[in-house]
């Protein structure tokens, strides 16, 4: 499979990638992840609050694993945005800092920025918040690699 270029119109980009984002990725669909925006090097993904995401039944706080999935999905999409292609990529590593507890009942939004692309590797930062980017719940740093497929 070769890479296909993304449309240039932002809304068309979001729509095209958004379809791929959920239809080709069953686990994104299972967590009801929604691609909100795709720029030239960035992507915004929303994860609605759901009972199945709860990691601590006493507090209702979402499990870290679900936040990991949200960040991985947003970061990977930011890489495709930066490559301007439906590229086959894999996550090499992902570091996540949990800055404050997520509030139960509210969606989580991940904003990922692919700030550097080399021939093989892409570097991505992301922030997760619940409405106010100034008080993030988590921050992350990840590296991704293009694969031939």
């Amino acid at each position, binding site marked *: 499979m070769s890479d296909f270029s993304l449309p240039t119109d932002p809304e068309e980009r979001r729509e095209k990638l958004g379809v791929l984002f959920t239809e080709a990725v069953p686990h994104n669909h299972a967590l009801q992840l929604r691609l909100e925006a795709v720029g030239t090097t960035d992507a915004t993904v929303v994860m609605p609050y759901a*009972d*199945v995401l709860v990691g601590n*039944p*006493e507090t209702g706080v979402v499990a870290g694993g679900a936040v*990991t*999935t949200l960040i991985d999905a947003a970061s990977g999409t930011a890489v495709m945005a930066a490559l301007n292609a439906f590229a086959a990529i894999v996550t090499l590593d992902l570091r*996540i800092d*949990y800055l404050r507890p997520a509030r139960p009942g509210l969606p989580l939004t991940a904003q990922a920025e692919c700030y550097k692309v080399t021939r093989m590797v892409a570097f991505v930062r992301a922030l997760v918040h619940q409405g106010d980017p100034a008080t993030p719940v988590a921050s992350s740093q990840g590296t991704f690699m293009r694969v031939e497929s």
Partner: protein
Amino acid sequence: MSTPSLPLADLVRQVRQSREYHRLTDAIPYTRFMGIGVENLAGEMLCRMRYAPHLIGNSILPALHGGTLGALLESSAIFELLLQTDTERVPKVISTTVDFLRSGKAQDTFARAFITRQGRRVANVRVEAWQDDRTRPIASSHALFLLSEP
């Protein structure tokens, strides 16, 4: 959301004794959703994430979503801390670094956690995940957890 019939700390204490691990993993909505369970195999406590189609991240290969491996590694670390130490509350993750080593096939995945250091407030945990061959891990992580707050 179903509330557990017992406070979690009581449930954890009982499960440490009885080793009915499913009582704990069933009480946590996310691990139930992900099919993550704790098993005692040959005297060793492991986590198993049972394969289900909704865990797939790449339908073409197919391969497990990287996030599901992160979830398994983190759950494994939390259950190790809850069941093998005397911590009373669900440990809070401070930070985690996951290395993705090989793509996860559409099958069950296992994980084993090792507590590198346990202080009064912070624990460092290392976890490895594998499928067919334990000597060829598909993902590994190290994570910091907050055990209690002053």
